[in-house]
């Protein structure tokens, strides 16, 4: 009995050791890639730029390092560019100059140059998506210039670690809304469907703002810029604003910050934002509002005589932060006036955005197609319907319902006396 038990457990232990992958790898045996850049290569198809974290420069080291590396602080990152046929091939080639194994486990951002994006990125992305080290929570951004230049020049001011910059920045944008929510997972999900087209964030190195800035009256919103063109001085040397719109895997157009905000509202990606609009009573002044989504927008698609009609109903919840004109919008009469004005304004902007995607890009980035599925019953009918073709012809009906609330929380909306 005892002998049998010994034999049994011996075999069991032997079996146990057959299973291990024996992949024990110390953390200092791997090179963690933080940012991956994809450019169109000169000779080959692809110019792959990787930014690798240098732990000693980034972590600062423990107290043990005080003595040895006191003087020169190592650079936090190391950037390598390699011309290759595909991303994984490029990673392999990296090892010609890299002593550690490149690892994608901590990849935070993939930067694709606009040039490459307009060509199509499916071939490169799908390869990554199937690779086990790759995380789908990685952010996808489209760079207006070459990705390599962006990666090499970008050095966040407050952060030592560009990956941390990316994480904080994307998290922050849910409260501003000038860039879409762009993790690769969502991009890939949209890529798989023909009913909705993917979008990505737009990034650029800081350039000179355009000469002809919009006149003051025209500047109805602070979001009407594209990345790289904002009238900003100082700060980090990159700007993220706007959306790169894709049709399938090819980039077909860009949206500015304000349009992106509406896109975020329509897709339910926004937590809250601050909106500044001209005062309806006196356009010289402006009103600042905090806007939240009351609930997700209700979308509906109908078909009359082969022409679809899209119904959008948006429900927003707002709160006046300040009114420069000192008009007490808390009073019921003024309130409905302001609400009506806001509804009109937002509906107009939404209408403009949808028209823009219909006319310029022919890309349904809002997911109306998902709602259009219920117009048909069978798969052949759906194929015959051909939503991507149909979308540009669609009519729209947009209703925005904003409820301004919580006036009670403001002691007095006009602190220095009503006019």
């Amino acid at each position, binding site marked *: 009995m005892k002998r049998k038990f010994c034999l049994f457990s011996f075999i069991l232990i032997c079996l146990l050791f057959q299973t291990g*992958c024996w992949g024990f790898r*110390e953390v*200092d045996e791997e090179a*963690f890639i933080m940012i991956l850049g994809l450019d169109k290569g000169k000779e080959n198809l692809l110019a792959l730029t990787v930014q690798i974290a240098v732990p000693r420069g980034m972590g600062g080291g423990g107290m043990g390092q005080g003595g040895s590396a006191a003087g020169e602080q190592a650079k936090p990152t190391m950037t390598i560019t390699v011309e290759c046929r595909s991303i994984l091939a490029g990673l392999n080639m990296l090892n010609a100059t890299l002593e550690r194994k490149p690892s994608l486990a901590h990849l935070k951002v993939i930067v694709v140059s606009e040039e490459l994006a307009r060509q199509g990125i499916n071939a490169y992305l799908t390869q990554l998506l199937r690779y086990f080290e790759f995380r789908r929570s990685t952010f996808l951004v489209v760079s207006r210039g070459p990705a390599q230049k962006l990666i090499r020049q970008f050095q966040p001011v407050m952060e030592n*670690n560009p990956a941390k910059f990316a994480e904080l920045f994307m998290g922050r944008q849910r409260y501003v809304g000038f860039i879409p929510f762009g993790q690769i997972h969502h991009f890939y999900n949209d890529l798989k469907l023909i009913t909705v087209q993917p979008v990505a964030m737009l990034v650029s190195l800081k350039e000179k703002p355009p000469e002809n800035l919009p006149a003051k009256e025209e500047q109805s919103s602070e979001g009407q810029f594209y990345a790289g063109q904002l009238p900003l001085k100082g700060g980090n040397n990159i700007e993220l604003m706007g959306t790169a719109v894709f049709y399938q895997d090819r980039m077909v157009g860009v949206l500015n910050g304000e349009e992106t905000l509406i896109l975020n509202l329509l897709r339910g990606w926004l937590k809250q934002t601050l909106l500044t609009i001209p005062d309806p009573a006196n356009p010289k002044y402006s009103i600042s509002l905090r806007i939240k989504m009351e609930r997700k927008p209700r979308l509906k698609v109908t078909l009359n005589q082969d022409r679809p009609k899209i119904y959008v109903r948006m429900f927003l919840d707002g709160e006046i932060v300040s009114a420069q004109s000192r008009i007490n919008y808390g009073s019921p009469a003024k309130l409905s006036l302001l609400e009506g004005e806001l509804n009109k304004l937002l509906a107009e902007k939404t209408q403009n955005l949808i028209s823009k995607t219909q006319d310029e890009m022919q890309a349904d980035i809002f997911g109306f197609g998902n709602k259009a599925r219920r117009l048909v019953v069978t798969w052949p009918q759906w194929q015959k319907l051909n939503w991507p073709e149909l979308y540009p012809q669609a009519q729209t009906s947009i209703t925005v319902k904003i409820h301004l609330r919580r006036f009670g929380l403001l002691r007095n909306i006009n602190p220095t006396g009503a006019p």
Partner: protein
Amino acid sequence: MAFWSGLKELFTFQAPVEQAGEQETPPGQLGQKEKKDQPKEKTRAEKETELLPLSPSPEMPSREPKSRFRLPVRAAAWPKFHAPKTKTEIAQKKIAASLEVNITRLKEIFHLPQNRDIVFRDFSIGTNPPVTAALIFVDGLTDRNLQNSHVLEPLMFLSRLRLDPGPTLLETIMTRLLPGNQAETTDDLNTVVDAILDGSTAILIDFCPKAIFVETKGWEHRTVSRPTAELVIRGPQEGFTETLRVNTALIRRSFHSPDLVTEFIKIGRLSRLNCAVMYVNGLTDPKLAAEVKNRLNHLATDYVGESGVLEQFIEDNTFGFVPQILTTERPDRVVAGLTEGQVALLLEGNPFALLVPATFFALFHTAEDAYIRWPYGTILRFIRLFGFFMATFLPGIYIAVIGYHHEMIPTDLLMSIAAARENVPFPSVVELLVMEFVFELIREAGIRIPGLIGPTLSIVGALILGQAAVAANIISPILIIVVAVTAIGSFAVPNYILNFSVRLLQFIYIFLGAIFGIWGLVVGIYIQLVLLSGIKSFGVPFLAPLATIKQATADVFIRGPVWKQEERPGFLKPQRKQRQPKVSRKWINQPKKGNSNASGK
């Protein structure tokens, strides 16, 4: 199998037959003992011949050339040599009517004159006519003042007073002359011997076939002091001492019920220490009490000196890696256990009580949980469980994550770990094992180190662990944190024995984590859970009430409000299930005028 028995034969001592006769009479003294009941006149030679039938040699002639070796004595045959006392023999040992005979027999039993511990004090009781008597006691175990003033003085001097004579001398002495608070008579010599060894004083009187033994225990002992391992802030501050009677008194002092029963069972065939078995009659599961007594009665070993040894003897799963018996040095803990239906065991000369049966979760309870309000008690338990998990799994998880699952670490943390590791020459596993080993070393040395030089150790330990190893780039600072958290977590485990099991398991999980990663840890936890749920402690599943038996009050993971604990733990199968009625705070149902702020039950 044949291989093993062959090995065993190789290593077994086999005595030649020539010496067989001498070999087989090692229990010479015992042989003499057994002769007590034989008539006194027998000579030494006769004794020798009587011993012969004990040995197996008669049928095997000793100088037989063809079988030069005899089989070694098997373990099963040992009792034959060591414990010749049977019930009938004991029964035969009656006290003789002659003082001289009794004294001679007792002297023989106690091996006088070599043995100088036992005092025989001859005197005469001052009756008319005087009767010779003798006092027998163990020097040092008795209180000499008590003996002088309460035994010898009345017998020698006060007996001359004019007294109404009783029916017999013995009765007169018992009723009128012996002011000791505990005095008993017996006609059994063994009882007398046991009483003498317990610290009583035996009085033998000529012409009297009975002996008196008076309770005169009075040896040096430690007074009741604070418990050392189970300190609480709120609650009684006394722990058990080495004196059994004091310990039982400590329990009974806070349990004023006539139902509390204390039985004594002698443990150890040589040492014969008293073991008190305490339970509540009418509450404790009678089967449980019977099983405990059964195990104690059938424990065939020479010496059990410590409750820890007793625990190892009577536990169910001797290869298990968790304690299956609750050890405590707090009387209040024992009382709480008794009222729930557990059985308590106290061994003489031992400041630790054993509570059976124990469950896994009871090992995380302390006395204080119940004494403070329930939210705080609950938090304390969570902290302890967290400490247990930390101590068991943290090094394993650390090594698994560091070696296999880099994506699980937040990027910034990964960078600082990697940066700290850059200059460390050893693999993480070696690093971790070295540090754990060094820590175990410090812990062990800290216990063994003489008190005066204790601070030296802590200075050296702290410097080596915290400062020098990191500064010299031998160890990465993150690892120091891991080891420190592990150590602190293991100290949060309230049960000292479980603490050892945690320290052991921790190494197993380090190996699993280093070889198989998180998968190995999961497999390890699974195996551990299977093993744990297979254990039973005195018939109660070890993981009760989590596994197999579900009836439980809110006193397992969390410590519920006291008024809510209406039932005793069902897995202990108490005879009285109800601890208190559904409404224990009776006043809340009383009619009130106006405001009713009653809440709860």
